[in-house]
């Protein structure tokens, strides 16, 4: 089945060819792993181990009592060498458990459950225990997401396989190589949510994945959907609009329109958690870009230092480079390579010197209207940028800055090179403060 496009959005160069044909592969284990205790939206975990403790691969080493949280696990066996605050890819400092990795690996025991017999409660419990979070980049705890509030029933499950960010191919490879697991995962999600219809949405630049899944799928409740290739097709609200023709209201959640979106990688993780009680201790990461020697799709242990991963892919070719955690439209450029790969990292994009620009010099808005034309949230990025730059946050709020999904399109098209997304990111916490103080009075 085909879906319509949403309003706004643009065609960006794909740059997928570096890694789209590369099969998922393993790399040599790192000597040390760094497991941040907060890899998700919600309350950070408390450590369950102490310095000097020995841990097995798959052992839970951090957890929290909060409902919105996700436990973390040791991805390899070894000795806890320290528990300390370390910088992660977002630039924040987070408490991390550092583990010296053993030569000989030792793992926890895995189960082999009968999927016919699992109950809804079993699924929720397994997902929660496995520490699964949204693996498309959102990092929202999946166990929370699959328990929608009773007054907001979900009638449509959308599996996001659009992968609209340029360069990235991890979801593409997962759909090709793990089609069976994905379909099983979808069925489990349908079961836990009581949803009859599931849609797997894939952009039409991945026809091989579309035919692979159509072939393997024998369930009439699962529909494989072909979406136009357009950025940001994979953004949650845009995808719901395109697939179901429902618009999530400003400030609202997919629940509000009876929809739920999961990344395809998350569905595979759900399958593994329910079937084997396997925690989320590894994920597929696309290491790509013009400036990495051997691009590929790598099965990476959570906590692997970025530098180890890049070295295993042949290293950076030319400096100065730009190393982006995530795709180039929304990812974060890294200052150093000691940060670990965490659960929500989809890819590492290594850009060559010619593309590695720093903060650009920008001009006044020349009111060309290009950003207005292309904003998929139908906002006025020009106004947001002007008021954001001037620190006029009440005005910025009136122009709906809080609805911005930070897709980066406005800054991409702006001929005045205005760093609109940066202004948005600066304005949002300020506006939040304004709103909080208003609510308190």
């Amino acid at each position, binding site marked *: 089945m085909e879906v319509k496009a949403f309003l706004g959005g643009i065609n960006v160069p794909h740059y997928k060819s570096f890694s789209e044909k590369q099969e998922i592969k393993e790399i040599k284990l790192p000597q040390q792993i760094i497991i941040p205790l907060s890899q998700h939206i919600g309350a950070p975990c408390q450590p369950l181990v102490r310095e000097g403790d020995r841990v097995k691969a798959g052992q839970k080493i951090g957890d929290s009592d909060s409902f919105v949280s996700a436990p973390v696990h040791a991805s390899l066996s070894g000795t806890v060498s320290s528990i300390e605050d370390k910088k992660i890819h977002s630039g924040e400092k987070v408490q991390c458990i550092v583990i010296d990795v053993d030569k000989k690996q030792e793992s926890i025991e895995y189960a082999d459950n009968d999927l016919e017999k699992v109950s809804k409660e079993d699924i929720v419990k397994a997902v929660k225990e496995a520490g699964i979070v949204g693996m498309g980049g959102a990092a929202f705890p999946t166990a929370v997401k699959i328990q929608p509030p009773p*007054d*907001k*029933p979900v009638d449509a499950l959308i599996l996001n396989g659009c992968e609209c960010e340029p360069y990235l191919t991890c979801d593409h490879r997962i759909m090709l190589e793990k089609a069976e697991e994905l379909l099983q995962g979808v069925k489990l999600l349908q079961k836990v949510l009581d949803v009859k219809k599931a849609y797997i949405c894939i952009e039409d630049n991945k026809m091989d994945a579309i035919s692979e899944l159509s072939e393997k799928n024998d369930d009439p409740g699962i529909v494989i959907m072909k979406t136009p290739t357009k950025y940001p097709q994979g953004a949650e609200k845009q995808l719901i609009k395109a697939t179901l023709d429902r618009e999530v209201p400003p400030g609202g959640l997919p629940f509000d329109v009876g929809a739920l979106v999961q990344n395809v990688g998350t569905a595979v993780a759900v399958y593994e958690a329910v079937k084997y009680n396997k925690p989320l201790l590894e994920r597929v990461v696309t290491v790509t870009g013009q400036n990495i020697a051997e691009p590929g799709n790598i099965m990476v242990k959570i906590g692997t230092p970025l530098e180890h991963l890049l070295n295993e892919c042949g290293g950076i070719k030319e400096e100065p480079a*730009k190393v982006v955690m995530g795709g180039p439209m929304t990812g974060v450029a890294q200052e150093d390579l000691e940060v670990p790969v965490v659960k929500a990292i989809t890819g590492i994009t290594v850009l060559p010197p010619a593309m590695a620009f*720093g*903060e650009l010099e920008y001009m006044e808005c020349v*009111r060309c209207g290009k950003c207005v034309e292309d904003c998929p949230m*139908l906002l006025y990025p020009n106004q947001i940028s002007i008021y954001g730059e001037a620190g006029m946050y009440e005005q910025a709020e009136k122009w709906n800055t809080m609805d911005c999904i930070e897709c980066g399109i406005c800054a991409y098209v702006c*001929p*005045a090179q205005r760093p609109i997304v940066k202004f948005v990111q600066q304005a949002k916490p300020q506006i939040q403060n304004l709103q909080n103080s208003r609510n308190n009075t």
Partner: protein
Amino acid sequence: MNDKKKLVVSSAPHLRDKGTVGNAMRDVFIALIPVSLVSIYFFHWYAAITIGVCLLTAVLTEVLFRKMLKKEPTLHDWSALLTGLFVALLFPATTPWWKAAIATFIAVGIAKELMGGLGRNRFNPALFGRVALIILAPLISFIDNQFAALYINLGTVDVMTQATPLAMLHQGMEMPGYGELFFAFPGGALGETSPFFLLIGAAYLFYKGHIGWRIPVSILGTVVVLTLLLGENPLHHLLVGSLALGAFFMATDWVTSPFTNRGKVIFGIAIGALVILFRVGLAPTEGVAFGILIMNGFVPMIENATTRYQFGRVRKAVAVTSGEE
């Protein structure tokens, strides 16, 4: 980890479209070259000198004003040169060079730089400079008398002394053929000599994505409808005067036109109506410059009235299940 890698950081996105303001302005400049050449073909040195003087004045004025305002000159954004060329194209070849220079000075210095620079100017600088000279006419004619000696005599080019097509239209004279008016006809300002070559330039800008269809189509459409209602010949009105230059190049100026889509249409219709009001109602004035400038002033109001709803407010989303939310 001892050899620190050289890494560059910046805020997202890490890809950017190739288009910059400088490239866009340069493209508009390129799009105006064909009509400029036609004017030089007809008016020889008179046109060439007017254009040259305006370009030079524009550059000098920008440098001067930005120095005064303690800002870096931004000649690389091509906006000064473009304004200079626009001013030149708005004058007939008979204009003394110093008048064109004063208009350019006002355009770049006052209408652009003193208003806060490119992006902050409310009015189209070139039109502002051109109209300022009309309004300052008494002063100008005083200077004219004082500096009569400054005139350069480049010999006569006889096409320069004939009536402009717009004047012919007003006086009910017999008009030149449509083909001639469309392709190339010497009369009026430099930029009025060839709607055909202006259209070629406009097509290039459309292809490059610098201008949209909404403003030109609503201006020209309004002109056609109103002239038909008033019993005038719409083709003559489309082909004479600076309508083509105004509709495709000046009303579409990014900075001084609305950024909302519906706003662009309203803006265009209003300009079309003003042009006809001036041309037919207040004959014999050329209403294009006044029409656009007047509407420039209304842009913020138009924008406020035509903002769209953000995503999610357009239609009430329907929850298929309970239906209440």
